[in-house]
């Protein structure tokens, strides 16, 4: 209920046949605009909140990719340093993560790097990690160079975009890019809804192998 965005979807659920569901965690220092980014993505809002929005901690949104519907389940995390050690409990089992920093603060970028490192070490090996340099609309106060962040992302195999929740720049794009990069074979993807309660207790080798090849991003 916490804002299960049904209205104003940027990419409304189409009539696509297959539905894949993915868990995506949001990591980042507390004032970098994690929730603004998600609210922009899910509800198309920035600041002018609707009455129905009571919280932006857990939200879902679907995007369409060709014949496929990708449903994101977005788990926000508390960004304060004191809660940092709890992050693994959130990203366990997540197929995607967006690590957000604020381009106007160098500190948030360094903390983003620690999160990336941690994700690569502790999260699922096939997790798709995206780095988002938020508040790109405040380019005047820029402290983190685009090239620096991009070089870092390339080095670590991350998706990278500078975003702005305020102007909506690259917001849908980054989620779409993640959706494209996620492995979609239903066994490994962990999400094809149709498979919900079935006894897919055993993962066939093929599934794991093909997933490994798409998961090159974080190795």
């Amino acid at each position: 209920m916490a804002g299960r965005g049904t209205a104003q979807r940027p990419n409304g659920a189409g009539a696509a046949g297959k539905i894949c569901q993915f868990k995506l965690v949001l990591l980042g220092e507390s004032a970098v605009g994690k929730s603004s980014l998600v609210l922009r993505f899910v509800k198309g809002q920035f600041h002018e909140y609707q009455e129905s929005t009571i919280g932006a901690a857990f939200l879902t949104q679907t995007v369409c990719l060709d014949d496929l519907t990708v449903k994101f389940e977005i788990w926000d995390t508390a960004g304060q340093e004191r809660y940092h050690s709890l992050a693994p409990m959130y990203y366990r089992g997540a197929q995607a993560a967006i690590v957000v920093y604020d381009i106007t603060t160098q500190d948030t970028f360094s903390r983003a790097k620690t999160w990336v490192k941690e994700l690569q070490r502790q999260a699922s090996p096939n997790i798709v990690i995206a780095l988002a340099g938020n508040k790109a609309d405040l380019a005047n106060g820029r402290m983190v160079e685009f090239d620096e962040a991009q070089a870092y992302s390339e080095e670590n195999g991350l998706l990278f975009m500078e975003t702005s929740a305020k102007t909506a720049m690259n917001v849908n794009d980054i989620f779409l890019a993640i959706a494209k990069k996620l492995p979609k074979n239903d066994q490994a993807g962990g999400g094809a809804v149709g498979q919900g309660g079935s006894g897919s207790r055993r993962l066939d080798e093929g599934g794991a192998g093909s997933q490994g090849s798409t998961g090159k991003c974080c190795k």
Partner: protein
Amino acid sequence: MSAAYNEYLVPGKRGFHIDESALMCKNGCDFYGNPVWQGYCSKCWRDHSQKAKQAQQLQHHHQVSPVQPGVSGSPHAFAKFEEKKRQQVDKRSKSMRSIFKKAQGSIKADQASHPTAHWNQQKQPSFESQQVKRDFDDFLKSLRKPAAADVFKQIHAFVEKVQQSEDMPIEDLSEMVQDFYQSMAERLQTHTAFKGFSEEQAEQLLGFIEKYLTTRLYKLLFCPLTTDDEEKDLRVQNRIRSLNWITTTQLDAEVDDRDPVIREKIDQAITDIIKMDSKRAPQDKLACTVRCSKQIFEILKASRGQPASADEFLPALIYIVLKANPPLLHSNMSYVMRFGDPSKLMKGEAGYYFTNLCCAVSFIENINAESLSLTQEEFGRYMSGEAVPPGGYGSNGSTCEGLRLMYQNLNALAELCKRQETLMENTLTLQQEMRGFKEAMLQEIDGVIARTPCTIRERVKANIDEEDSEVDNLPPPLLPTPASV
């Protein structure tokens, strides 16, 4: 213990897979592992625990250390007897609960010698059991006959099976129950009696099965004697009690606990989380967590005037847990993790809020000076009760109503004092301004007077009868002329 919660959160079964490497059996046998079985798959876990049991039997532990069920597997029969005895002695004075437990334990001992005692006990099911039985029966009636009959048969066979193996370690029971869920899920897809069942119907039926089973078997499954759950409960409870001085600001929780409207919402959230203990089915316990979380969002919205994100939610949840000190929190959470649908704990709204609750408890267990941005010395003094942090009246509020009122009044008085002071100040400035205004006005008037001296010119009297040359130039007065008729 946070590690324990972490492990539980890895989904094990029922076709919900996300993270293979973390999910695979520790033995590397390509099967899935389950945290409840220490990361082994059911087969390897059985082997492993069997070995552990044998090893224990060989060693003959007479000196029983507190049994760590997750570590030592199933204790040897004698060790178990010792353990029970130890618990009975240890906990004599600890809680009412342990007294009830003890009574239960002795019943169990009787039952071992008289198997028929089972049936006696079954004849008087609890109120909750009767309720869920009625609901379940109604639901079954809505199904087709063969399907209903099959579910009924399966479930009753299973209930009996569990009741007969009640002395099993909780991990094995959890495994048994999860296996049953799994086999039922598979049965719904493959068995002819369930042909044509929609996804939703199957989901609903599985939900009912979980609810019925756990409610019926609650006494066996919840906080069993074979575990140290009760000790952990007490530990968490005492920990929370010793932290009751924590304020919202120390946690970064933007909760305005002075506002009476928000206070009411806080009380509602506290009630919701406490209610968790009164529900029997894991799904109902989860629902309580979700309700509490939603209430917290309401609190945050009312306090901040805009919707909250996780940055605000988690601290607020920690604060609510600290204020509520929910009864048997550890037992309730372990129970949900052992007997709930694992996919519901990893996914969806309920999973998200439950994860947050696990995080909150983990944080509370590991709270230290650093995590509250306090110095070691301050932290020590607050912990020992020597000092109370400033602005912490809210924390005392729930422990003592009188004290809370006093603090509220003190606060109100302080506020009034402040307002009085500003009022005084404002009056003085106003006075000064008035004075200044008066002076300025006078000065200005003086200035104007100085610039325009008031001289009264002598009045010249005019004599209209005086002869004047101008008068001579005027035309003569008009003469009246008679009108011609």
